[in-house]
Structure formats: structure tokens, C-alpha cells
């Protein structure tokens, strides 16, 4: 008989939560640094506080929501071309 498999890193929900908490902390930290670090600006939009944070978040949410809508038009069965 095979031995019972050992538990892996992300089998414990606690570890998944930890990763998420680290991510939240990093987001908070980089956003806070926007106050401290005087960024070199190539363009006025960049000067807005938290510009890159908001843009990155909104871009990804938009991307996924639009792509989901695209599925309604573009998605076919897996063997669509195989007939």
C-alpha cells in the first residue's frame, strides 16, 4: 500500500492566508512609500498619488471582466474544429 501522502505547503489554509497577508502588506507598504519617495516624473499623470496602484488594479479587473464577456461570443466546444 502507498504511504499516506505528506502534507504540502498550501494544504494548510493558514499558509494560503499568510501569503495573502504578505501581499496586502506589500501593497500597503508600496502605497505608503508614495508619500515618502520623491518620484522622478516623466509625465503629469504619474505625479498623481497612487497612480500606478490604482491603474494596475483597475486595469486587471477590467481585463478580466472584459475577457469574461468575450467568452460569450468566442467560446466554443473543445472539439469545435475537429469534426
Amino acid at each position, binding site marked *: 500500500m502507498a504511504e499516506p501522502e505528506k502534507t504540502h505547503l498550501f494544504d494548510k489554509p493558514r499558509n494560503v492566508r499568510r501569503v495573502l497577508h504578505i501581499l496586502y502588506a506589500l501593497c500597503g507598504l508600496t502605497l505608503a512609500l508614495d508619500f515618502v519617495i520623491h518620484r522622478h516624473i516623466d509625465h503629469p499623470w504619474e505625479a498623481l498619488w497612487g497612480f500606478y496602484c490604482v491603474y494596475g488594479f483597475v486595469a486587471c479587473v477590467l481585463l478580466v471582466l472584459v475577457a469574461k464577456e468575450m467568452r460569450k461570443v468566442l467560446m*466554443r466546444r473543445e472539439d469545435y474544429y475537429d469534426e
Partner: protein
Amino acid sequence: MTSSIAPFLIFYLGAVLLAVTPTGLRRVIALLVPVLGALNLYALPEGVGWTLPLFDYSLVLVQLDRLSLLFGYLFHLAAFLGFIYAFDVRDRLQQVSAMLYAGSALGAVFAGDLITLFLFWEMLALTSVFLILARRTARSFSAAVRYLLIQVGSGVLLLAGALAVIADTGDIAITRLTLEGLGPWLIFIAIGIKCCFPGLHNWLTDAYPEATPAGTVFLSAFTTKVAVYALARMFPGTELLVYIGATMAMFPIFFAVIENDLRRVLAYSLINQVGFMVCGIGIGTALAINGAVAHAFNDVVFKGLLFMTMGAVLTRTGKINGSELGGLYKSMPWTTGFCIVGAASISAFPLFSGFVSKSMVMVAALEGHYEIVWLALLFASAGVFHHAGIKIPYFAFYAHDSGIRCQEAPRSMLVAMALGAGICIFNGAYPWLLYDMLPFPVEYEPYTAAHILTQCQLLFFSALAFAWLNLRGLYPPELPSTNLDVDWSYRRLLPAAATAVASLAGRGWQYLDGGGQALASRAVSRTEGLLVEWGMLGRTWAIKTTALWILILLSSYVFVEYL
């Protein structure tokens, strides 16, 4: 010491050796050839090397400058990594065609004239198709036929354009062109096909995911990068390219999000990365061209690495669909790690290779006052992290546990992936070696506090968006599916239209009785006679025009016939 051996020749000779030697020897030869080739390249003098007379012209088989030299080294590196990855492959067909394919890419970047470029352009198509055929499935066979038709079509357009340019200028040398007149446009479109301009891109996402695990690694390195090189050589500073490139960077990421085949996801993100290069070439400043070329270099390594990890997954599990995978970090921890390095590189995390090259194009876009394009590229940067940076590792190695337990990737594959990952980190952490090889002197400094911070903000908040969408259940699940793209027009629409026309015409013909049919035939031949005597067809045409029409007619016939 200087050498005078053409770089492609070493690979072609290597391919001949591979064709006749037994398995054990073949794998050694395959590794030796890129090393010997790189040494030879090091010893080659700059300028015109090898010429061959052809009628009134002299073909320049080898011409070396900083731009071609960089691509030359890049292709040797890609071939070397590829052959390590394919060390356990015993399939002679794949080895020989990969060797010829790499040689053809070298031939194309060192070509000094349009005819030589055309020859290697077609060789790229002819040799690479076997890497797709070598999968030996019905799907890969039909994908390979479509791939070959489109690639050869690109070559035919290149030849037609080259002949038109030569007829106009009397010179066969590869020079900077402006988009005026037929010749330059034909060349532009020919390159555009290989470069995956929007609408002309579908051959890549159709064929690359159908190749063998090692085959896709080779394919991802050469064809599109030769096209990028040709654009940088012939059309730098062409403003149209800025917008084409921005579109290429944008639209594939939407397809990548809903695609289930993870190698096809990577194929879409390949187009997205080439978009950054095309955009840089279009901007045309020293910084932008440097950025485009540096990004081509980094992309070959990190995209090759990502294809390697997915090829390893395919090799071990026999599956590549996101819907069937998950939890593989338990079985393939090393592959997982290398995949994450590749993902961090393509996403341009600080200390990884994408960080030092992609930003050059973006800064150049701002400096050239292309604000909207800059926003588009920023969107694409966030998007590429989303689908290639997170989606690929997440759905293959984490997500829900698929229950698949397999072996870690074979050692040869691990070595290749480790080397690729090492180069990604080296180029990211110490970019100056790469910068020194670029066509123009580099004044750009990637590691400023502002750049590091803004890039981290962009990426962390993109990751936050992924986590949020996932936790809220808004993220589209991986579904077994086919997504329609431009290929639908020639795989479904065109055949359906042809069948409809044929059946309509057939029914119409039957509807006429014997007398009607005779009448119709007579009318047709009468009209024909009139046209030939007085009309369009009776005129004398320039041979150039006639040749062009014959070319168009024949290639569209071939295209429709074999689709």
C-alpha cells in the same frame, strides 16, 4: 584570429551530421554546434564577409554589424539552451529540423541583401514546420499545414516586394525603407505576418501550442525575432509601427485570460511581448531601438524558459490544459521554481530581466509624447503579469489539486531551465553586459528609486486584483473550450462560403435545360472573345504586373486548396 565561415553553414553542416549519426553521438553534436558557432561568430570580422555572384548582382551572405551580431549571439544561446532541453529527445526529425531552423535564423540576420534574406526567410518556414509535424497527431498535422501556407505566403510577399524594390532602386542591399509604393508595403506586410501584426497573428497561436515540447521552445525563439530584426533593420522610426505595436501588446492579453491550453496562453503573451518591441522600433529613437532589441534578447530567454516549464509539465503529465492541471508544485517543485523565475522576468519584477528592457521602450514612448500609447503599454504590463505572471504558475502548479502525482522533470530539462532562469536573473540584476552589446550607447539607468517603486506598485496591485477576483469568485474558471480568433475566418467561414457558392452555382446550372446551358456557354465564350480583342485582357501588360497577378492568383489558389 579571424574566421570567414558563415554562421549558418556550421548549423547546416551540423544538421547533415545529425542526419547520419547514431543517437548517442547526435546529442553531443547538437550541443557542440552552437558552441562552435559562437566561437566562430566571435572570430568573424565586422562588415561584409561572404559574397556570391548572381547574374548582375552579388549576394552578401554574411554582413556583420552591432545589430546583427547581437541577434547572432542570441540565436546561438537559444539553440544551445534548446538542445540541452531536448537532450533526451531521440527523434532525429526534430533534431535535424531544429538545427536547420536555427541555422536559417542565423542566415536571415546576417543576410546583407534582399534575395539572401528571402532564401533564409523561406528556409525558416520549411525547416520549422517539422517541429510541429513531429508531434505526430492529426491536430498537429493540420495546424502544420496551415502554418506552412501562411509562412510560405509571407516569403512570397517578401520576394514580390524585394523584386519591386530592386526594380525601382537597382540595388539589392537591405536598406532603410519608407512606406511608399508597392515594394516597401509588400515587404512590410511580409514581415508583419512573421511578426504577428494584429489580424496576421493567428498562425502563431494556432501552430506553436501543437508542436512537441522541445519544438515549441525552438519555435518561440527564432521566427518572430528574425521578423523583429528585419523591422529594426528596414523600418525603424516608422510611426505606424508605434500603433501596431501598442495594439499587439494589448489585444492578446484578453485572449490569454480565457484560454485553457497553457502553451497557447504563452503564445498569446509572446505576441504581447513582441508588441513592445514593434512599438520601440516604431518610436525609433536610440533609447527605443535599444529597448526593443534588449527586450528581444530577454524575451527569447524568459519566454523560452516558460515554454520549457510547460513542456516539462506536458511531458510528465500528458496534459497542458489549465482545467486539468493544478497542485503540481507537490510533484515538480524545481519546475515550479523555474516557472516562477520566468514569470517574474516576463512581468518585469525588479532584479529580473524584463525590468531592465521593457521600461526602456516605455520611457521612450513618454519622451516621444505618445501618451495614449504609454497608457496602453502600461495596461499591457499589468495584463502580462496577470496572465503570464500569475495565471501560468497558478493554474499549472497551484490552484485546486488535480490529484496528478508525477515525477519531477527529466534532468536535462531541469538543467536547461536552470540555465535559462540564471540568465534571466543575471540580466535583471546586472544588465550592463547586455547594455554594452546594444546597437546604440546606453545612457538609461533602470534602477532608480522611482522606477523600482512604481513597478512594484503596478505589479503588487495587479496581484491584489487577481486575489480579489479569485476570492470573490469573479475570476473566469479554466474551461475546456476553443476560443474563436481570426483563424475562424479561414477554417470555417471561407470553406462554408465556398461550399455555398459551389452548390448555388451547381443548382443554377441544373436549373437550365440543355438549350439554356448551351446558350450560357456561348455567351461566356463570346464575352471572352470581346475581352481578349478589345478589352482589358487584350492590352499589353508590363511583365512586372503580369508576374504579380500570377503570383497573387497562384498563392491564393494554393491557400484555398490546402486549407
